[in-house]
């Protein structure tokens, strides 16, 4: 099986030559028609018909304690109820993505809303009613729900997405001696992914073989996690997840509903459907941690950073040492000889914290990019100029070279397009009626990741190609860019490419997460196609580099042979695998961008309305200009929500997630989102992957919220360091005369 280890840059490839002209084109989604006509079902919408049973989850009514008894008698006698699953071995919530399986309760309650039972009935309605009849008796204990209170007890976590601590030089001394200093603390709340499709699973056994339709991001890992939770071998489990209604990290680890559906389907010998209610999605999957972040920047009077410190505290449940890599971008974004980046993890008796879109950057860059704005003001420098003065030429952590870095170009391009030169540095300089107008910017960076990924590409005798991989499309455009890649490589138009995804029976891919999907899975298709091209070249009796494939025809020298003819009734198949290699280790790789935002802040009420926003993004080769732009738009909207509205409120008396529905957990709605513009700088980063593309899916959110809050400050002179910047917090500053200089 052809495997490519990403040790060094490839030269020019067929993707550069673009004989078929597909790569980079703003093509419509491969599965778009299915989605807009309702023919791409959610997991719960599969397996209709007789014999299906329905499960509804029962959750814990307290956050901490011991289960004394679960009374299921009433539920059992309720019409339609078939079974009530209880026990110490039930999953409490989703698996940690890096974990081998979901945690189990063991008779204890670890957080409010933890899974305690599953009621199964002939109809969903009967199951839901049955679930309401289950009563739980528990011995309640005092719990810990407040990160601020637990901060003194926070510990150094083991290395995760990054080491907990990175340091260079003597930060404390350099900061103490700095000519100009900033020392501010920022807070961000817990957040919930809030994907449109709630977590759901449909499980069915045939003998010892389990098939589960579910909605998940990492098919390979999720298959193993599900098997481990059930105590069976992974090859006995097949997961199908062809269409996914959003993930955002919330579906990286297998969900409790999939384990429960499989467990109970086995017990009752029927297919079982389990969907979490919207409230339960908030309560029993995962959340993004709350954070406390202290940022210190020391600089010379002319704006050279001499010391940069980013100390952070986040939370997770006992026994789970995942920490949000809050300082990920602070490590490399700006120069400075003396650096200190730390992460501390506090235990809370609250739902597991895990990855949510751009874990690390999404919240870490709020603090860093606000601090840069505040420091620029102290120095009397334009925020862009301050950033430019601290542009490093090598990774300031370890002096390794950057694989590619176009941050300054993003900032300059954005400044020019957005009209940055018209910005008044002084807050409250622009007013229209009751509305104070301001603009702000922030840098974006997202560390580039690559993951092992395999795909099979088949050339059928009729000249069609089929791409087969367990890769997922969580709305990102995987189907489309994999079809474009195969089409470009094999010289086939889009309508001659079939892409099959989201099936654990197919070659294992990177899955979708960490913005690594397009480059990793795309590269596996590239590698498989290269192998096919070698074989086609042999049939053409030429070297592969002399073979051009275009519109279903093989061309070498003055010979043109239709592919169908060349195949002569034979199908060709190759599997390609990408493995990360030294290129990642020897270079620092990241995507970069710059966000610009204009807001109006109501001088009476403190309401903020985003008026326009522009993000200039650079992520190496752009594979599809339309889906890439959509990824950036989605990230920017996440940024607006992060800045202005999103907060998963934990009741600090008892650990209840208070606002666990979409009416009260406020994601931005259309009316909150104005004209958004995205400019993609089309570059190539040959060290990143054979695709020469870097991660894009999370770049749009990284730093976006900081551009919004920097604009709020520019508009009204109020600096909110406790996210989100809801109107009450802005109003407090306005009422105190904030910014009236």
């Amino acid at each position, binding site marked *: 099986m052809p495997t490519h280890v990403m040790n060094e840059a490839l030269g020019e490839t067929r993707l550069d030559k673009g004989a078929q002209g597909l790569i980079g084109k703003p093509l419509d989604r491969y599965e778009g028609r299915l989605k807009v006509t309702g023919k791409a079902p959610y997991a719960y919408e599969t397996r209709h018909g007789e014999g299906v049973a329905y499960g509804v989850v029962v959750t814990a009514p*307290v956050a901490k304690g011991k289960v004394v008894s679960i009374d299921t008698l009433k539920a059992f006698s309720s019409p339609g109820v078939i079974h009530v699953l209880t026990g110490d071995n039930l999953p409490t919530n989703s698996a940690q993505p890096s974990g081998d399986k979901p945690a189990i309760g063991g008779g204890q309650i670890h957080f409010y809303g933890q899974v305690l039972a599953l009621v199964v009935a002939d109809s969903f309605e009967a199951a839901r009613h049955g679930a309401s009849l289950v009563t739980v008796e528990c011995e309640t204990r005092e719990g810990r729900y407040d990160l601020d209170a637990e901060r003194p007890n926070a510990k150094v976590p083991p290395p995760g997405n990054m080491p907990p601590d990175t340091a260079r030089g003597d930060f404390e001394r350099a900061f103490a001696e700095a000519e100009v200093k900033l020392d501010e603390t920022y807070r961000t709340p817990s957040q919930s992914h809030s994907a449109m499709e709630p977590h759901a699973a449909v499980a069915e056994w045939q003998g010892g073989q389990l098939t589960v339709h579910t909605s998940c991001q990492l098919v390979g890992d999720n298959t193993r996690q599900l098997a481990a939770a059930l105590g069976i071998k992974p090859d006995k489990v097949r997961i199908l997840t062809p269409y996914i209604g959003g993930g955002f990290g919330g579906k990286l680890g297998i969900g409790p509903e999939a384990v429960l559906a499989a467990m109970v389907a086995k017990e009752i010998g029927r297919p079982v459907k389990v969907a979490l209610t919207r409230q339960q999605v908030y309560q029993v999957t995962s959340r993004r941690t709350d954070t406390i972040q202290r940022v210190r920047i020391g600089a010379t009077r002319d704006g050279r950073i001499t010391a940069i410190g980013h100390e952070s505290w986040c939370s997770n449940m006992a026994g789970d040492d995942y920490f949000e890599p809050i300082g990920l971008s602070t490590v490399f974004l700006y120069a400075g000889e003396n650096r200190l980046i730390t992460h501390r993890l506090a235990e809370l008796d609250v739902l597991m914290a895990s990855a949510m879109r751009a874990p690390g950057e999404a919240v870490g860059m709020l603090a860093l990019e606000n601090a840069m704005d505040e420091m620029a003001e102290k120095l009397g420098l334009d925020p862009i100029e301050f950033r430019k003065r601290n542009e490093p030429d090598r990774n300031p952590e370890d002096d390794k070279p950057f694989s590619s870095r176009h941050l300054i170009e993003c900032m300059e391009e954005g400044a020019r397009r957005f009209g940055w030169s018209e910005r008044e540095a002084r807050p409250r300089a622009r007013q229209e009626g009751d509305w104070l107008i301001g603009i702000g910017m922030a840098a974006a960076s997202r560390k580039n990741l690559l993951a092992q990924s395999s795909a099979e590409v088949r050339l059928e005798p009729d000249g069609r190609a089929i791409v087969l991989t367990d890769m997922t499309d969580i709305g990102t455009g995987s189907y489309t860019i994999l079809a474009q890649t195969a089409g470009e490589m094999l010289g086939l138009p889009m309508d001659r490419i079939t892409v099959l995804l989201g099936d654990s029976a197919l070659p294992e891919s990177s899955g979708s997460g960490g913005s690594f999907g397009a480059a990793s899975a795309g590269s596996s298709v590239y590698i498989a196609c290269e192998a096919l091209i070698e074989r086609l070249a042999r049939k053409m009796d030429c070297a592969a580099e002399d073979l051009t494939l275009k519109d279903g025809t093989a061309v070498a020298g003055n010979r043109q042979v239709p592919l169908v003819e060349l195949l002569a009734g034979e199908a060709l198949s190759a599997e390609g695998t990408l493995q990360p290699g030294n290129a990642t280790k020897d270079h620092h790789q990241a995507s970069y961008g710059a966000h610009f935002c204009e807001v109006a802040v109501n001088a009476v009420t403190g309401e903020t309305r985003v008026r326009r926003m522009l993000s200039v993004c650079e992520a190496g080769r752009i594979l599809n200009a339309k889906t890439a732009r959509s990824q950036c738009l989605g990230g920017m909207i996440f940024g607006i929500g992060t800045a202005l509205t999103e907060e998963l409120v934990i*009741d600090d008396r008892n650990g209840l997630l*208070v606002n666990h529905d979409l009416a009260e957990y*406020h994601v931005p709605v259309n009316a*909150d989102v104005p004209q958004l513009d995205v400019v993609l700088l089309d570059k190539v980063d040959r060290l990143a992957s054979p695709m020469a593309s870097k991660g894009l899916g999370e770049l749009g959110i990284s730093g976006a919220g900081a551009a919004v809050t920097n604009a709020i400050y520019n508009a009204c002179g109020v600096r909110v360091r406790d996210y989100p910047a809801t109107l009450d917090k802005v109003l407090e500053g306005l009422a105190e005369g904030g910014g009236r200089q």
Partner: protein
Amino acid sequence: MRPFEYQRATDAGQAADLAVAGGRFIAGGTNLLDLMKLEIEAPRRLVDISRLPLDRIEPTDEGLRIGTLVTNSDLARHAAVRRDYPVLARAILAGASGQIRNKATTGGNLLQRTRCYYFYEPSAACNKREPGSGCAALDGFNRIHAVLGGSENCIAVHPSDMAVALLALDATVETLLPDGSSREIPLAELHRLPGETPHIETTLEPGELIVAVVLPAPIGDRQVYRKVRDRASYAFALVSVAAVASMEEGRIAAARLAFGGLAPKPWRNEKVEAHLVGKEPSPTLFEEAADLLLAEARGHGANDFKITLARRTLCAVLAEACQGDK
């Protein structure tokens, strides 16, 4: 959802009869069905009134009579409403979402229940949901809760925007009782303050059906609805102000003010209005009005900001309503 009986009413009298013992009227269902799924509402019987002929908007001698089944969307876009009662159209369009407004009805909007987080969480204490269990909001996360009119038993707010505008328009509710009689209830008297019984939210008798809302002629054509909320759509009011006023020779001739987001019911304080009438508008006068409105206001922590916000919003709304020489 608890099993329930469903009956479709053939006329209003029969509907009232069917609802007397443990029945609930259902029309748009945009709130009731959500609550039933959570078993916060568990009626034994649903009486479907959606097909009754109560969906007309008719002019009266002085004003307008709005059938209880008129949808929020239809009411907001009705020509007479937009011409004579723009505060009502604006309030309705400030609420919910397009899809919900297409289903939600006039009577149902008035009777929608609070959005208090703890009311919606079956495991939390809530005197409104489970009398005697306590109020988790009092010392809990009460950012959206009442600063006026609450009690030690409940500080949940009434979520309607439409009702706030109707209150400023002196609306009356027309009802039909199971015994066949009818009565008129001034909107100000429809909702009750929580006191000791937060679970009893209105003065309606069991089975009493709202059949129409009647509007008198507006007292002025200076009409403003200002809703302050956390996001631009699909969010309940943190504070809202409905103002209807008229001016004569530079003085305020008449004023009606109603408030949402502040209290367990659409809030009106006639002392505030009386203080404004006959006076020349000025920032000082508006501040005095706010002083009167908020004299008894009390925050519970997370909602303290509402007192400041209400003051500032009221002053801005009064300034807008009184400006110019219309």
